[in-house]
């Protein structure tokens, strides 16, 4: 008697027990499902960590031009989201990171070859790459339907990336948002990201990578309002070993909330191209 209920309970228990990450902080949770039986991750999500300023521990800091920007340009303090606290850089790479940071708010596009040499790509409104797109101070939407593709749409510079589910083919060429292949592991969406342009940075502190960057992201629903996000970051060109970041993503719940535009190209044109205009320098 009551067999159906008991079976359902057993299935539930099995699913819950294999569900990873969440365990420590969240009560057991069974997310709503899409028709294919996988969790429904649709919604607008946003990180609240300050990792876009610095993945590691950081104090509140003034912006690059406090004499003009005052407290407007300043950044908040924050705790490291890196497992173990520090990014395991190879010795030489720390120096490069320091140089990146020093010139983070500069740009020089006078030569095609040196186009990307200095300045934070965010400063120039370039697409942020992965995982940075996830912890920028802007929301993003996960669009999940019944096709073999999931779309991630980010508010920052209207960047998008397509997650190809159970896809075999490799990245045809490097791109700013990379080549994302997804699969489900229980209730966790796992995304393998390769083929990223070497020019993207990981934060405003100058943290960087090469084209060998390999990111494995994990999105696990832990309540109707939270996804746990975890990413393993590997790049033998820069780091001594793979390392991990994790933080929660929060569902945006405001009435009628929608992803808006942050098309920042017009905010950077004077900086990048103003000096080549007719009146410039006169």
């Amino acid at each position: 008697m009551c067999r159906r209920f008991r079976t359902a309970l057993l299935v539930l228990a099995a699913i819950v027990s294999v569900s990873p990450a969440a365990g420590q902080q969240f009560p057991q949770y069974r997310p709503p499902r899409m028709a294919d039986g996988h969790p429904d991750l649709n919604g607008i999500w946003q990180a609240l960590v300050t990792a876009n300023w610095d993945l590691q521990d950081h104090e509140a800091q003034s912006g690059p031009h406090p004499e003009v920007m005052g407290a407007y340009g300043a950044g908040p303090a924050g705790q490291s989201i890196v497992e173990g606290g520090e990014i395991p850089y190879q010795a030489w790479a720390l120096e490069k990171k320091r140089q990146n940071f020093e010139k983070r708010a500069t740009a020089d596009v006078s030569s095609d070859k040196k186009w990307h040499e200095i300045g934070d790509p965010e400063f120039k409104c370039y697409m942020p790459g992965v995982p940075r797109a996830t912890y920028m101070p802007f929301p993003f939407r996960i669009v999940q339907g019944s096709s073999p593709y999931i779309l991630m749409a980010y508010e920052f510079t209207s960047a998008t990336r397509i997650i190809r589910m159970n896809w075999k083919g490799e990245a045809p060429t490097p791109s700013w948002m990379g080549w994302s292949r997804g699969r489900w592991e229980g209730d966790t969406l796992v995304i393998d990201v390769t083929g990223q342009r070497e020019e993207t940075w990981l934060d405003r502190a100058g943290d960087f990578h090469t084209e060998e960057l390999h990111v494995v992201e994990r999105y696990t629903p832990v309540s109707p309002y939270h996804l746990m996000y975890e990413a393993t970051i590997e790049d033998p060109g820069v780091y001594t070993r793979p390392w991990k970041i994790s933080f929660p993503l929060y569902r945006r719940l405001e009435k009628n909330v929608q992803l808006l535009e942050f098309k920042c190209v017009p905010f950077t044109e004077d900086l990048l191209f103003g000096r080549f205009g007719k009146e410039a320098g006169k």
Partner: protein
Amino acid sequence: MNRLCILAGLIAAVSMSPIAGQAPKSAQKAASKGTPAAKKPPAFRTPWGEPDLQGVWNDATSTPLQRPGGIGTKDVLGDEEAAEFQAQLANDLTRDRRDGGPEVDVNRAYNDHWMDARRLKITADHRTSLIVDPPDGRIPPAVPLSPERQKARAERAAANARFNAGLPDHYTDMSLPVRCIIRTDSPPYLPTIYNNDFQIFQSPGYVTIAPEMIHSARIIPLDGRPHLGKNLRQWLGDSRGHWDGDTLVVETTNFRTDDGVTFQGSNPETFKITERFTRVDATTLNYEFTVEDPKTWTKPWTAIIPWNKIDPAEQMYEYACHEDNYDIVHFLTGARAREKRGETK
């Protein structure tokens, strides 16, 4: 007994996910809607019961927006005339001819290497224009412009002239597509030389259109919510959709007032665009748009463009634009160099 089981199940479900009662609507809908096994669902339906538009579509065609002069009043051609029409259009569109002199050659620098081959074929139904209303296949006559708009148009024309002469003063002399702000991602969607792909995603309560050029996603809510407030304008406007039978109807307002944002320089305050997406069969979708603006055209007009599903082996790729927009610097440094040499034209 049975009732007890259900009750026990309910209690268990509630206690295992304590705040599920507040789960977002879309999730609830997706979870609760199942297809009854006995009833066969109609073709091209999502699991949650809406017409299924998902896939990567291509809107390239050589059929012109407006019916060309000289072709008479025929809106649809017979096979033989159609072949001739297509050959003529392909010849006009090709960039590899060398019969225009050096200046024209420069403007054909994006040669046939860049050309989407589908751009050289007319629509399968052999129409002579994409415009279906008015019946003459032409954009209705223009309404006289206000002095302010006349001035703005003249300024834009002067900037275009400087750019085309290779002497742009400033980056603002360049159009929004050249500046990588908006390209073919702003409605209405019209065929162009390359990157005519659009991927449609659907999720309960939303249709999302991702045009390849430029990497933006137009996320269209279908829940009847109001448009954004009038002081919140966007480069791609603000879209709301609903189903009219099997057709997705999308209305877009709240376009920014910057020069070049609204279609054909129409007035952002009064411009209205309605798009209709209808799945025809496994490989075709009908895209229809109607634009109206009493301050620009004497009456509304409508065009239909067939969208064809692309070969699954073909893919949507990232179209980065601003990130390596060397052209802007080349155009401007070229202009400064020419000014130094005293060239003014």
